[in-house]
């Protein structure tokens, strides 16, 4: 009986290029599973237009209504998404979480990186760049998003290790480059002595980089970015940001589909799948390009 097509719905935080990479990975996994199993396996992409939990909940619920074989979700808000996630399980639609730690008490698999480690890496690297002293700022992403919150918390903890470093400002970009740019510009206006930036999502470091450039602070304000959007890579190439601690979105999408498929066919799945972190620098990018 188990030869019919399987359809998964992928629900990211928001319409965003980073999630396109996740989607690419997910499709790759679906294609190879289709080949391996002979069953038609597809991934449908359903994203909220803004990073708004209630909009995301609506999308989750509407997806449940189509009875897919499983939902792959990147929750915007552990608590705010709770009801929708429970609904999914109640309706018999399996849930796989990606880009996020697993929500407590739910029978789900989580795919992602060690976000705390990712934040810590970025913060430590920035601390080194500014000689372990000075004023720094954190761009917090979507503060309710579990992975963003974890990164922010660990970045703060990392900075706290250095007595001469002070976190003087935090911004919130809600995963929007434009918001990040505005926030960063305003924060640099009110903190002329700012020495460096870290961020908590993929949009944040791009906006920060643009603001640094627009305000003529390149070389004066350091940035260690996050993730590997094209704009981020360009910022590193141009020397606006020194480096980036990047999770691997394609891998997350890939493994999320694998886990969801396992769940759909009744196999046991691990609680957590770690997809790892890359550190991108001008040098590593050149090496990559050379390869």
């Amino acid at each position, binding site marked *: 009986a188990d030869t019919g097509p399987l359809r998964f719905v992928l629900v990211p935080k928001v319409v965003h290029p980073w999630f396109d990479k996740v989607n690419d990975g997910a499709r790759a996994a679906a294609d190879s599973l289709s080949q391996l199993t002979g069953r038609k396996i597809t991934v449908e992409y359903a994203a909220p*237009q803004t990073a708004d939990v*209630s909009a995301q909940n*609506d999308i989750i619920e*509407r997806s449940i*209504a*189509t009875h897919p074989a499983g939902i792959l979700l990147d929750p915007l*808000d552990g*608590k*705010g998404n709770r009801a929708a996630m429970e609904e999914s399980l109640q309706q018999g639609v399996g849930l796989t979480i990606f880009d996020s730690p697993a929500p407590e008490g739910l029978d789900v698999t989580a795919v992602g990186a060690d976000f705390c480690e990712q934040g810590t890496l970025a913060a430590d690297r920035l601390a080194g760049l500014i000689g372990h002293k000075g004023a720094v700022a954190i761009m917090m992403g979507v503060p*309710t998003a579990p992975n963003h919150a974890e990164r922010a918390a660990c970045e703060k903890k990392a900075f706290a290790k250095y007595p001469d470093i002070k976190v003087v400002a935090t911004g919130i970009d809600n995963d929007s480059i434009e918001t990040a740019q505005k926030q960063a510009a305003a924060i640099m206006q009110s903190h002329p002595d700012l020495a460096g930036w870290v961020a908590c999502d993929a949009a944040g470091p791009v906006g920060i980089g643009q603001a640094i450039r627009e305000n003529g602070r390149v070389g004066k304000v350091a940035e260690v970015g996050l993730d590997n959007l094209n704009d981020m890579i360009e910022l590193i190439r141009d020397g606006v940001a020194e480096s980036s601690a990047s999770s691997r979105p394609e891998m997350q999408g890939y493994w999320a589909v694998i886990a969801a498929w396992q769940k759909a066919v009744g196999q046991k799945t691990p609680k957590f799948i770690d997809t790892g972190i890359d550190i991108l620098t001008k040098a590593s990018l050149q090496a990559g390009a050379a390869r």
Partner: protein
Amino acid sequence: MPLETTVAAPRRGIALRGIAAHLLGNPLGGVTAALIIIFVAASLLSPYFLTGFNLMIIARSLAFVGLVTIGQSVLMILGELDLSVGAIGGLAGIAGGVLMVQLGLDPWLALLLCVMLGGLCGWINGTLVTRLRLHSLVLTIGMAGVYGGIILVVTKGVAITSIPGDIAFLGRGAIGGVPVPFVILLVCLAVVAFVMQRTPLGRYVYAIGSNADAARMLGIRVNAIRTGAFVTAGVLSAVAGMLMVARLGSAQPSIGETWVLAPIAAAVIGGVATTGGLGSPLGAVLGAVIIGIIENIIVLFGISPYWQSVVSGGIVVLAISFDAIARRAMAREN
């Protein structure tokens, strides 16, 4: 329509045209017809559409925008617009979070206070508009900045979590399978529609929207009624905001951000004119149902998120065009 038509139609009589004529004669005809068409099309095109679960989630997610639409439609009938209704809803939600979580107030008391806060915001809008004779559109653009800004100041953009479970059923519960927020929407709609259709106060609202000077000359308390309408809109937005908090279990600073244009579009689709004096809250809510169904089927059909805005915008355009085209076609027939 001339007398002859009503007599002639059954004679020529395709039943369908009879129905169409009837619908077009009724002020709610256009929106009802559009709704039926969209509903039937959705049912035919997606097997998931007509399931109980799907209808339930449509009803639930409709409730929030629907409540705001009721208030906005009353203001529009009066010839005003309030672009701060979304911010008021968000502010009420955040205030609820602060009162319940940070100050530990009894959730029900907090709820009451927040709804009153919504009324207060509406009262401020109304008083500024009437006392200073300001232009409500721009005043409320400004006030949306103020109320929305206060949300930011209070929360710094971070949601307030751990809302007490006591009120959760307001957002998540169901009564006989019908989601509680939807029940609340229906109750509010019934009350407002009744007032608008059957009481002097409601008639006065239409009168003011049709000719405010003449209304004042008749001894109608134009300013008091205007202010009252702003208060009503504020209260309804606050209710929507609190229901959203109850549903999410957290007070998000983004609550209400999408409650500004959609209710206006819904009201116009439902036959309310921005120039005042025309339409009804019921029509406006039917307009909101249309928008809600559109959003639902976009996901059901698996339309790419990149195309969603094109599609939903396009359908809004179609929905208002439909009415216009149908009326003109009928007019040409006769």
